[in-house]
């Protein structure tokens, strides 16, 4: 009997807990709190936070190779399957109409990617801080946070720096949720009241055929110049083609709903399995959180500055505020542009104008990811 009791006691959490595990369980709970009470990307942060808790339960080893989270991780993240399927779903949910209505605004989605590459440089510089050691691969994986696009960050992170994936994903989604707090001051700092008041002319109508051809054109350009970006861009285009072609509704609906929901649950839990104490509770994580903030800020600034350039070039036809939407974080960033625009001028509706750079930002960061994978990977 005693023996049995001891065996049972020796198998309790109380007996086996490490401080690190307790801390990580608190972190997981914190993410869940932010998701539910503060609306921080709940679709991702609830599964991630919960997965983080499960991963840090002693004895159970749920994140181990035999455990549920471990199995999901190797099946879906190591293989790259989950982020690519999410990207397909995103494609099936995204309307590129606003982008097609005024293609020139895509340039804003390009400019905002400066946040990524500047952060890569910053991450390397951070090696000067004692206790922090980022390889070029680590730096690239961290920098992609600036893409402000979850699946892209997870895809790149899982390829270049699996150990940092937990922190990278948490940073990416947290800062996406914080876009309404991070961006406005930067946007206001860099623009004049006159610029912010700028009204933009209504978008032209976009034909169905243009919408069907766009994903194919996008894939064509990508495969010609940057094949390493084609897994991401390709699945985005595939999902979008399913949506726009209009003849396979049952497939596009499934890709945009049941399938992406299922994959989101699995992806979130798997990411959580990377919230292991020894990896997460480190100077690196603080560095990553700091760099992520830098990435978002610089990306926002770069977008707005390019917006100001277009404002000049077009003789005031473009409101610089939509530049910040170029970081993607769809559709949050576009809503922020709209909000700040309305503050400057109650008749100034920028939402649909900002959606163009917004979705262009998704493409831009997928392209940036391709460059990183091609050169660093």
């Amino acid at each position: 009997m005693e023996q049995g009791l001891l065996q049972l006691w020796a198998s309790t959490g109380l007996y086996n807990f490490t401080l690190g595990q307790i801390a990580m369980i608190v972190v997981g709970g914190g993410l869940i709190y932010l998701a539910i009470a503060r609306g921080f990307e709940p679709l991702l942060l609830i599964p991630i936070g919960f997965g983080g808790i499960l991963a840090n339960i002693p004895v159970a080893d749920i994140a181990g190779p035999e455990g549920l989270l471990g199995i999901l991780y190797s099946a879906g993240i190591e293989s790259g399957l989950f982020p690519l399927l999410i990207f397909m779903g995103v494609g099936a949910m995204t309307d590129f109409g606003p982008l097609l209505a005024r293609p020139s605004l895509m340039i804003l989605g390009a400019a905002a990617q400066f946040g990524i590459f500047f952060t890569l440089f910053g991450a390397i510089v951070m090696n000067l801080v004692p206790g922090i050691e980022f390889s070029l691969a680590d730096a690239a994986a961290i920098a992609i946070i600036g893409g402000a696009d979850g699946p892209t960050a997870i895809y790149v992170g899982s390829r270049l720096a699996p150990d940092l994936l937990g922190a990278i994903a948490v940073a990416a989604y947290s800062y996406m949720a914080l876009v309404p707090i991070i961006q406005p001051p930067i946007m206001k700092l860099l623009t004049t009241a006159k610029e912010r008041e700028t009204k933009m002319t209504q978008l032209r109508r976009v034909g169905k055929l243009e919408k069907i051809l766009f994903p194919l054109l996008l894939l064509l350009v990508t495969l010609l110049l940057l094949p390493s970006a084609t897994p991401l861009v390709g699945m985005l285009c595939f999902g979008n083609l399913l949506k726009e072609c209009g003849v396979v509704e049952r497939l596009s609906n499934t890709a945009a709903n049941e399938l992406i929901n299922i994959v989101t649950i699995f992806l979130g839990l798997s990411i959580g399995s990377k919230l292991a104490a020894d990896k997460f509770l480190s100077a690196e994580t603080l560095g990553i959180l700091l760099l992520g903030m830098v990435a978002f800020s610089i990306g926002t600034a770069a977008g707005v500055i390019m917006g100001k350039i277009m404002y000049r070039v077009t003789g005031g036809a473009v409101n610089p505020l939509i530049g910040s939407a170029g970081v993607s974080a769809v559709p949050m960033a576009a809503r922020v542009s709209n909000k700040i625009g309305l503050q400057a001028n109650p008749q100034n509706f920028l939402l649909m104008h900002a959606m163009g750079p917004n979705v262009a930002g998704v493409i831009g960061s997928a392209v940036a990811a391709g460059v990183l994978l091609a050169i660093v990977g």
Partner: protein
Amino acid sequence: MNIEELLVQSLQLLGLGMGAVFIILVLLIGMVTLVSKLVPEEIVLTVTTPRQGVDPGHVAAITAALHQYRKNR
């Protein structure tokens, strides 16, 4: 690889990366613009679809607006 090399490499990446992003998106702008010229324009109004689809209220609002819009012409 020492820190200097890393810094050089990361700066190179910055140049190459932004270059690639701009080249590809500019090329895309060109092709899309070209296509929009070639393609016969239909009467289709675009409305942004946020990632999570459109809820009934949203549809209602839009259709109402469209109805209104047709009346106005």
